[in-house]
């Protein structure tokens, strides 16, 4: 393990220490308007549909509905792995916003998860950024730390900090100042094909309890049926990779730093710890030793696993509840015998909790997105229409739209979203939603550091690729990654 210098460690530690606690320990699971200490699928059902919200009226108090202005806005939009249902909600959102604010000239641009950070950074360098942006949870701290974002807290758009997940609020906070508002928060689950389990001689209704079981099950599926057991993803520069590997890393007791601990200080690099190496070894065993995962894992993202799964060629994968809808979309597009085969896969689709590590530790990435307003000097034209920007921030982070824009794949950032009538409908519409809401308390946020995007999108996938291609041994790959993190935290490294 590698130690960072004490001062920077204390600084970072102070900023993130409460984050993991906020999600895993009870004191922080006690914020209104919903009682997070009672969090369970039953509780979520009991509060759904208990309150009415009028978004237009609420946001009209922040920005008058007859306000005349102009707004440039970039957002992480839908991509190839999302269901059609979500595309419709995005369309509806912008239509409703334009109807509510007919005099705001909105120029929006959707970018995919994997493109957004690079493009946004480039625009910032040329002082050509949009006035407002919706970024993945990983990006907020980087841009806040660099001074690109205006302070923005929920109270500025008519909400309260307590309306949002405490852990999510920490992800938009840098140096004690809040720079954005969470729009949605998510945790994933394990998905498996019960028919494949049965044919492979496994219990069809019993998912792997531990990550070691995942390795065993994956091998058994592959050896018996000749298909891929587990949908490993190790592509570089793709958000899907850390979202699937970090639960494994944390489950084994490893981490980048100590971000999975109850009181993280981030003063110790743990990528080269024995626990982290065991997690990496599990991936190595599946990819190299057992050859029980897709060979294309190094260039795949989750969108590539979906066709494999619907074709009955993949036994298990980690993803959102929205994958059920994606499978239904794919089934509609299939023809002939493929259509029936896809339907059979959908009928056999099961969701379960993410497996634990050998010590019973269960973890999942607490993901999501935030919405921010930029400082005028970095915006094209040097001006930010603050009222127009606040209007869209208010709209997107409202109970209604923070839920609808996360309808199939995620959960509302605004906790009041769980109380809406749309949540009630959603619980009936979206199969397996209970599983992912049950995973929320196990959620661990990425370390809220400006360097986090490079660690998660480049260093971690590089480590996986170095080990899985045989370019390095598991030990070497872990040590190499730890050194890269150390160099990065020291401000350098190639």
């Amino acid at each position, binding site marked *: 393990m590698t130690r960072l210098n004490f001062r920077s460690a204390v600084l970072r530690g102070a900023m993130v220490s409460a984050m993991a606690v906020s999600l895993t320990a009870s004191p922080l699971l006690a914020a209104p308007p919903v009682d997070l200490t009672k969090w369970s699928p039953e509780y979520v059902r009991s509060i759904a549909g208990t309150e009415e919200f009028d978004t237009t009226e609420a946001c009209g108090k922040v920005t008058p509905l007859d306000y005349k202005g102009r707004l440039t806005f970039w957002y992480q939009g839908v991509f190839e792995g999302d269901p059609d249902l979500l595309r419709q909600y995005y369309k509806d959102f912008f239509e409703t916003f334009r109807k509510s604010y007919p005099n705001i000239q909105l120029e929006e641009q959707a970018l995919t998860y994997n493109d957004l950070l*690079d493009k946004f*950074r*480039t625009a910032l*360098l040329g002082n050509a950024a949009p006035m407002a942006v919706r970024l993945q949870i990983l990006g907020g701290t*980087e841009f806040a*730390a*660099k*001074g*690109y974002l205006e302070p923005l807290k929920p109270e500025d758009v008519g909400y309260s900090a307590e309306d949002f997940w405490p852990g999510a609020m920490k992800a938009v906070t840098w140096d004690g100042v809040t720079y954005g508002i969470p729009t949605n928060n998510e945790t994933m689950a394990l998905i498996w094909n019960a028919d494949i389990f049965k044919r492979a001689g496994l219990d069809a209704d019993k998912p792997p309890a531990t990550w070691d079981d995942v390795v065993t099950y994956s091998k058994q599926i592959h050896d018996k049926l000749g298909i*891929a057991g587990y949908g490993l993803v*190790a*592509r*570089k*520069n793709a958000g899907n990779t850390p979202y699937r590997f970090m639960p494994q890393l944390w489950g084994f007791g490893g981490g980048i730093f100590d971000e999975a601990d109850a009181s993280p200080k981030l003063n110790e690099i743990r990528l080269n710890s024995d626990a982290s190496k065991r997690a990496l070894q599990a991936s190595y065993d599946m990819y190299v030793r057992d050859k029980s995962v*897709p*060979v*294309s*894992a*190094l*260039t795949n993202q989750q969108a590539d696993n979906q*066709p*494999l799964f619907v074709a009955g*060629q993949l036994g298990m994968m980690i993803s959102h509840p929205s994958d059920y809808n994606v499978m239904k979309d794919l089934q509609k597009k299939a023809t002939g015998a493929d259509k029936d085969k896809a339907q059979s896969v959908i009928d056999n689709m099961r969701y379960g909790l993410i497996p634990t590590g050998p010590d019973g530790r269960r973890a999942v990435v607490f993901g999501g997105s935030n919405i921010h307003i930029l400082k005028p000097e970095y915006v094209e034209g040097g001006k930010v229409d603050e009222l127009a920007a606040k209007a869209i921030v208010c709209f997107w982070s409202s109970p209604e739209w923070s839920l609808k824009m996360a309808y199939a794949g995620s959960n509302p950032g605004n906790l009041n979203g769980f109380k809406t009538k749309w949540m009630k409908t959603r619980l009936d519409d979206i199969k397996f939603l209970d599983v992912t809401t049950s995973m929320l308390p196990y959620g661990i946020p990425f370390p809220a*550091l*400006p*360097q986090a995007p*490079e660690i998660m*999108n*480049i260093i971690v*996938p*590089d480590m996986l*690729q*170095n080990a*899985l*291609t*045989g*370019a*390095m041994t598991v030990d070497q790959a872990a040590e190499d990654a730890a050194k890269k993190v150390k160099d*990065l935290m020291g*401000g*350098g490294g*190639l």
Partner: protein
Amino acid sequence: MTMVTGEADTARQSRAVRSGLLRQMWISRTDYLYVLPAIVVMLIVIAYPIYYTVDLSFFKTPPGLQLKDKSFVGVDNYIAILTSDVFWRVTLNTVIWTLASTTIAFVLGFALALALHRDFFGRGMLRAIFIIPWVISAVAASYIWKWIYHSDFGIIGAMLVQMGLTDRPPNFIDSVGTVLPSLIVVNIWREFPFAMIMLMAGLQTVPEQLLRAAQVDGANTWQRFWHVTFPHLRGVSTVTILLLAVANFNSFIIPWIMTGGGPSNASHIWITHIYELAFGRQRWGVASAYSVLLFFILMTLGYFYVRALSSNERREPGA
């Protein structure tokens, strides 16, 4: 100060040349005015970015800070690059990529140009078919090839398995050993039509009388090609090879879309690595130093390109 006669003569000649040059410029001042807007635009869009890149290459740009917070580090970025293992690996990849792509695309293009130069039924259609890879979008082509190569359900793999030639689909782009050759194949597929078109145009300039005269003198097909056709194509061949080499050094789309430089940096070439350093990892200073090195290499190729063009022009009046 006393000047010796030789030095004085040289100084006088130099002054005369300068004043002559200035006089010439003054006489042609209207011409210079005409090209002034173009020069101004070039200074803005070419000269300034070059200056800025060179300047930035001497600064450290920590990834956690804004670019304006950079600090001067002299040639440290250059030293860091030249002493890095990754740099030499990426350089080797770039050399293999450029040499293999350029050579094979040129040879293939040349062979097809010769084949399609003769008149036969369906020649026009074949020409059109062969040009397709060059005219379709490189982005679209990259995605198509990614699926063709897919290690689990790619078309090539499926065919090989169905024909019983292999148990499992071959691993084209998920293996450090095969990824670069696989990408080079795609690049050659994209580029050979360019060489073919250039050389087909060159073949039009080979005098028919000379070929007939050689035939009358008893020269066989190979002798006619080697002693008549090929010398006439030397100029266009040089230009084609240089253009292909420059394009290959600058390749980005195919490796970036298909593999993003992976797995394990096995398909990173200079441009993709520079892009990742700059836009993915925000090492603007190091990326700039990389770019400066690449700039000098490309300028060298550019010099030979211009020289080849000039020698062609000189040869043509007497050809």
